């Protein structure tokens, strides 16, 4: 079969593009190198919906960020994704930085960012009582928000696959050729996908895939960002996303609430050669927390429940490159989708959709397209009468598997059965939060493994943490 569109990469950008095309009467395939959606840059970033004043005016970043930020709230509602418009603050600590935030404000106006205000130290402290005494003022952007990035990608994939998109996991692209109007995308395992249009949304791997297709070279640098996540008992630390003034390596270290009431501290920013190595460097967290304490002195590694690192693809021109391949307008490259890539993702999907339609003409829309997905059950957040009704329908919702986050067996089974559902421990974790809490899966890990083995009809020892060779257990004891 020849697909109408093949999308490479199931991060937040790829999945939203897949959803965009799933409303048309066409055959769409979403190809992913790893075992699950949201496994690359999407999995490990700040989860910020930036307002859009950072990027230089006139760039793709500026344009798509402001548009994406405007689209995000409704999109998240439609897809049942945790989102909060909590507003952001860029804090200034001296006269020079007070000038910097004015520059950011003016740039925001030019970029079309709504609802910004420059506030003094008193107002800042009223908004954020735990802010450093050294803070002199801030740029307050009320349109900024926070979103759960991997849940957005998971939701978009569920929506797309619910509308007929095919999801191919563990499809590591080896070669792409073009003949007679059809692309042939070959996997390292030997299987092959044929498609009339290819969208290269492979994130960190996008430059390599572009090169594999026609030798085109993009100058992309992998930039590592490390984070520490604090226990929910620290939830009162701050309510806005608190930035320091930006520098040449990006937007600096931030302190922000997450959608799930943890506090996130980070990222660092260092250029790396190996984009597959998401290791936290020795000593990095001590540095990050020391920097973060400049704006919010009470954050401490003592309250950390986990640390992680992500890598973003930075293009030397410091912009998103979204463009057809040289000599082939049906092969579209998305290169350098780093921050504000998450904030921009709904707008990137819209932009790519329009680009393809301009080339191939507008396809017929499906009559039965569903822009949403089945609302996931979040047992812990339901009122008691709804909890009871659910249990009456399915007693698996009465059995709590993850004690720290109160996640039930029913929710875990739902996550596995969903379109493009979970097939490993981390997949269950990202979809349900089982294992995200204080004990980090110490108690529930073996139970989740059992449920996965049962639902997928696999032996327990075949269940992995995140695909590949990430086995949890080996042979039986003697």
């Amino acid at each position: 079969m020849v697909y109408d569109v093949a999308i490479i990469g199931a991060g937040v950008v790829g999945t939203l593009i897949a959803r965009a095309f799933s409303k048309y009467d066409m055959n769409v395939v979403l190809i992913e190198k790893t075992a699950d959606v949201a496994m690359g840059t999407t999995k490990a970033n700040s989860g910020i919906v930036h307002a859009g004043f950072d990027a230089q005016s006139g760039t793709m970043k500026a344009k798509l960020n402001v548009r994406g930020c405007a689209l995000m709230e409704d999109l998240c509602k439609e897809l049942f994704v945790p989102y909060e418009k909590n507003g952001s603050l860029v804090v200034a600590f001296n006269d020079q930085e007070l000038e910097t935030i004015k520059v950011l404000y003016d740039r925001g106006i030019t970029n079309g960012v709504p609802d910004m205000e420059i506030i003094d130290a008193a107002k800042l402290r009223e908004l954020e009582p735990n802010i450093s005494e050294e803070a002199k003022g801030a740029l307050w952007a009320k349109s900024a928000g926070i979103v759960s990035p991997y849940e957005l990608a998971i939701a978009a994939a569920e929506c797309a696959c619910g509308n007929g998109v095919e999801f191919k996991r563990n499809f590591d692209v080896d070669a792409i050729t073009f003949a007679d109007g059809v692309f042939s995308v070959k996997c390292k395992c030997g299987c092959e996908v044929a498609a009339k249009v290819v969208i290269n949304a492979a994130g960190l791997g996008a430059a390599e895939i572009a090169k594999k297709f026609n030798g085109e070279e993009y100058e992309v640098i992998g930039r590592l960002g490390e984070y520490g996540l604090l226990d929910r008992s620290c939830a009162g630390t701050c309510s806005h996303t608190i930035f320091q003034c930006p520098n040449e390596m990006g937007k600096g270290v931030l302190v922000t609430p997450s959608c799930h009431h943890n506090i996130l501290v980070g990222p660092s920013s260092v250029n790396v050669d190996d984009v597959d190595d998401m290791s936290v460097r020795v000593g990095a967290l001590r540095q990050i927390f020391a920097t973060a304490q400049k704006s919010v002195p009470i954050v401490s590694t003592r309250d950390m429940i986990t640390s992680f690192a992500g890598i973003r693809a930075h293009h030397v021109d410091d912009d998103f490159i979204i463009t057809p391949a040289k000599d082939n307008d049906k092969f579209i490259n998305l290169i350098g989708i780093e921050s504000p890539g998450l904030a921009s993702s709904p707008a990137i999907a819209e932009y790519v959709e329009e680009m393809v339609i301009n080339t191939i003409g507008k396809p017929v829309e499906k009559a039965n397209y569903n822009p949403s997905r089945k609302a996931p059950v979040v047992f812990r957040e339901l009122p008691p009468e709804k909890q009871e009704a659910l249990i009456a329908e399915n007693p698996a919702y009465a059995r709590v598997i993850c004690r720290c986050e109160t996640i039930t067996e029913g929710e875990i089974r739902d996550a596995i059965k969903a379109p493009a559902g979970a097939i490993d421990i981390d997949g269950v974790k990202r979809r349900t939060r089982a294992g995200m809490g204080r004990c980090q899966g110490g108690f529930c890990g073996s139970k989740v493994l059992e449920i996965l083995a049962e639902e997928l009809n696999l032996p327990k020892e075949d269940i992995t943490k995140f695909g590949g060779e990430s086995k949890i257990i080996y042979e039986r004891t003697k």
Partner: protein
Amino acid sequence: MSKILNYDLVVVGGGPAGMAAALSAMDNGIPEENIIILERADRLGGILEQCIHTGFGLTYFGEELSGPEYAQRFIDLVEKTKIAVKTDTMVLNLTKDNQVICSNRDDGIYTINAKAIILAMGCRERPRGALDIAGSRPAGVMSAGAAQKYVNIDGYMPGHKVVILGSGDIGLIMARRMTLEGAKVECVCEVMPYSGGLQRNIVQCLEDFDIPLYLSCTVIQVHGKDRVTGVTIANVDDKMLPIPGTERYIECDTLMLSVGLIPENELSQQIGLEMDPVTRGPKVNEMRETSHKGVFACGNVLQVHDLVDFVTQESQIAGKGAAQFIKGAPEPEYVNCKGINGVRYTVPQRINKNNEEEVKIYFRVANVYKDKRVVVTVGGKELWNRKKIKLAPGEMENVFIKPEDLKEMKAGDEIVVSVEEA
């Protein structure tokens, strides 16, 4: 409308603490049919069910039992009574008027009105994230307790070449267990200059198997993309920071963590119990009553114990206290307890001066001490002292307060436990 039940006493947790507390409440006059135990696992016994090694019961029963044997003695006792037991049942909420809201597959969500509640939820292991260990996040990093469940309950090997970080008792026990199952345990690293585990476990689990214990040493980096392929360890200085130049790489497929236990107090915090920042459990009086009237706590949810025998004894006190409360007890007059000078905390944190029995104050020390005295003073006056050849953070200690001494104290007095020169 959900089901509402009424019980005199609700015990949250059916491990050794919960069972002993329920039985003790019965022995102290609460009708057995008015007591219920709620347990989230599918059977009673708690973590003892996976502790198949011996060493349990030496103090309480005067014989050496395995964990499941020790638990079974109490399960048998509970089963002979009319104490209600609900397994596979999770407590979702506690309310300030002593209601317990819980959920299970058979009954759905229901509410229990209780005259008294005993919290006996136990503790959990500190995860990797709480430590500043750099590197990747592959499969094969697990808590020693999780590994113990895979091996002893599920019957699977969680790894073949193991490094253990932390010399807490579970880590030591698992070093031996994995060795007996055919795995190679490369070493146990302990960041402190001494082990946090029992001396007998260091001898029986490490020395007997030639497993090296590296003190003042920690894991600074995890290697491996999918599964652990090795770790980098390094010696640490007296501020517990890695010393450059001492790093070495050890090939392994598993990193087991035994880096401390944390009482599981989510429910306690829901009703705003006053907590002790050192024990991370509620503050209690000598009957183990928390800052909330009618709510008691015992076992590892209150303070992490090294021996289950002590958990049993403590829980019997809590059961008795709950029984007295239900039957109606006079208003207490409190004296406070605290530890200084090398004594990290005391349990209880306060004592009713009108108590008519001897009170044991439990405590742990902050460091390893040799040839010192443990001293108890009230208002600067020495009440009690005893010479100790060795004190270690891994071993829980206790001192006694006699009722006649308590009577002489005034409400608000402070009982101070300290380590002094011999």
